[in-house]
C-alpha cells in the first residue's frame, strides 16, 4: 500500500507543481491520473520514487517511509518500484535482453552487471517476461531496431523484472497509435491483475482511462480535484479538471471533424452514384 501525505513540490523556478496532495493506493488497484498538461501528473509519479525530490510531505510504501532516505537506502527502495515511460526510455544501443536485465541492476554488484553475468534466476525471469510480452524472438536485437509498441513491451518487461510492488506508468501510450495504445493498456491491466500489482498510470486520453482504470484521480494545478470510479467521471467533473473553455473547445472540434467527415462521405457517395 502506498500513502502520500501532504505532498508538495515547488520547483526552483517557483512553479508549484504539487500542493498538499494526500492519497492512498491500496494493493492491486490500477489508478489513472488525469489532468491537463502542467497539472503535476508527471511530478507526482516522479516524486514517489524520488526522481524528483518532493519539497515537503511524506511518502510511505508498505510501512517504509521513502522521503528523507539516504542515497543507498533510496536505491534499495527504488527496486520495489517499477517505472514505465512515455517515450519508452530504453537504452537504444543495448540489446532487448540487456534492457530487460537492467531492471536487476539494483540487485547485482557493479562487477556482475559490468561483465553481464547476471544470476541464472534473473536470466530465466527475463526470458519468461519477454515471452509474456511476446518478444521472445527479439531478445538479441538492439532496442532501436524495434517498433514503438514492441519497445513499450520491453519497457514493461524491464519494469517487471524488478519484481516490483508498485508500478509507476508515465503516459504509456502517448507516442503510440490508437490500436497499439489499446493493446499496451490491455497488456498492462492483465499483468497488474495477474500479480495483483498496484499501478499509477498518468494518462492523457480520457476515454482510454475510463475504459481501463479502476479508479481515476483528476489533478488540476497540483491539486486533487476528483477521486472516484470511472463512471463518476461526468462532463461537469471533466470541466473542473480541464477547465470549461478547453473542454468545450475540444468537443466542438470533435463535432466539426465529424461534420466534415459526414460531408465528405456524402460527397463521395454522390460522385460514385
Amino acid at each position, binding site marked *: 500500500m502506498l500513502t502520500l501525505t501532504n505532498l508538495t513540490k515547488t520547483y526552483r523556478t517557483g512553479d508549484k507543481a504539487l500542493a498538499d496532495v494526500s492519497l492512498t493506493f491500496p494493493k492491486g488497484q490500477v489508478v489513472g491520473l488525469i489532468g491537463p498538461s502542467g497539472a503535476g501528473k508527471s511530478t507526482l509519479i516522479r516524486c514517489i520514487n524520488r526522481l524528483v525530490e518532493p519539497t515537503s510531505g511524506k511518502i510511505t510504501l508498505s510501512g517504509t517511509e521513502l522521503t528523507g532516505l539516504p542515497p543507498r537506502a533510496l536505491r534499495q527502495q527504488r527496486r520495489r518500484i517499477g517505472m514505465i515511460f512515455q517515450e519508452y526510455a530504453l*537504452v537504444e544501443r543495448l540489446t532487448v535482453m540487456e534492457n530487460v536485465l537492467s*531492471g536487476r541492476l539494483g540487485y547485482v554488484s557493479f562487477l556482475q552487471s*559490468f561483465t553481464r553475468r547476471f544470476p541464472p534466476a534473473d536470466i530465466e525471469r527475463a526470458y519468461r517476461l519477454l515471452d509474456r510480452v511476446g518478444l521472445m524472438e527479439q531478445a538479441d536485437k538492439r532496442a532501436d531496431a524495434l517498433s514503438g509498441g514492441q519497445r513499450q513491451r520491453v519497457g514493461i518487461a*524491464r519494469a517487471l523484472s524488478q519484481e516490483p510492488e508498485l508500478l509507476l506508468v508515465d503516459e504509456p501510450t502517448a507516442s503510440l497509435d490508437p490500436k497499439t495504445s489499446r493493446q499496451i493498456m490491455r497488456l498492462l491491466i492483465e499483468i497488474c491483475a495477474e500479480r495483483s500489482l498496484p499501478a499509477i498510470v498518468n494518462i492523457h486520453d480520457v476515454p482510454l482511462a475510463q475504459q481501463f482504470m479502476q479508479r481515476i484521480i483528476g489533478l488540476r494545478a497540483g491539486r486533487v480535484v476528483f477521486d472516484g470510479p470511472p463512471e463518476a467521471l461526468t462532463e461537469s467533473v471533466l470541466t473542473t479538471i480541464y477547465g470549461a473553455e478547453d473542454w468545450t473547445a475540444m468537443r466542438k472540434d470533435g463535432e466539426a471533424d465529424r461534420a466534415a467527415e459526414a460531408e465528405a462521405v456524402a460527397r463521395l457517395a454522390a460522385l460514385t452514384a
Partner: protein
Amino acid sequence: MTSYPTTWRRPPQIVTDRRWRIALLVAVLAYLVIGLGSVEVNWARIVEGGERGMRFVQGFLQPDFTSRWKDISNGLNESLTITLTSTVVGVAISIPIGIGAARNLAPAWVYYICRSIIALSRALQEVIIAIFLVAMFGFGPFAGFLTLSFATIGFISKLLAEDIEDIDEAQAEAIRATGASWLQLVHYAIQPQVMPRLIGLSLYRLDINFRESAVIGIVGAGGIGGTLNTAIDRYEYDSAGAILLIIIAIVMVAEYSSSYLRKFLQ
C-alpha cells in the same frame, strides 16, 4: 480595398541604426588598410626566397627515399610509437576526467577540478608543452609521448564531457529508477550513448597525434619531425620531400580508414 507593399527587405538584425552601421563599416575598412600598410615586405628577400622555394619544390619532384632511409625509418618508427602510446594513454586518462567534467554526472567540486585540467591542457599548445618537457626530460621520444598524452587529455575530455551533457536524459532516468548505483548508471545509460562518438574521437585524435608528432619533433621531442628538421638544415630537400610525402600518405591512410571505421559504429 487596402493596398499592401510589394517590396520587402530583411530588417537589419545586429546594428539597427543605419549611421552606426556605416560608421562601423568605415572603421573596419580603415583598420584593414592601416594594418596592411604596416606589414613590411622585403621584396628582394622574396625574390631570393623564390629560388630556394623552387629547390624545395624540385626536391619534392625528385624525392629521395633511399640515401637517408635508415634515419627516415627510425624517425617514422618513433613517431608511430609515440602516436599510438600517447593516444591510448591520453584517452584512458580522458575518460574519468571527461565524466568528471560533465555537469549532469559530477558534483560541482569535481566538475570544477576536471574543467580546470581541461582548460590547462587546451591553453598550452603542443609545441610549447614539448619545449618545456624536452627541457625537463631531455631530447627524445619520451618527451614527445608525454606532450601528446597531455594534449590528448584536453581534447578528448572536453568533447566527451560535452557529449555526456547532451545524452538523452530519459534513458538515464529509466536506469536510475531501477535502483542502479552511480557506476551502473554510467555503464548502462551513459556509455552506450557516448561510445560511438568516443571511438570516433579517439581515431580522429590518433591522426592528429601523428601530425603533431611531426611538428614537436622539430623542437627535439623525437620522431619523424626531428628527421625532417635535420634534412632541411642540411639542405637535403630531396630527403625532406620524401619525408613529407610519407607523412601525407600516412595521414591520408589514417583519415580514410578512420572514416571507414566510424561508419560501422552507429
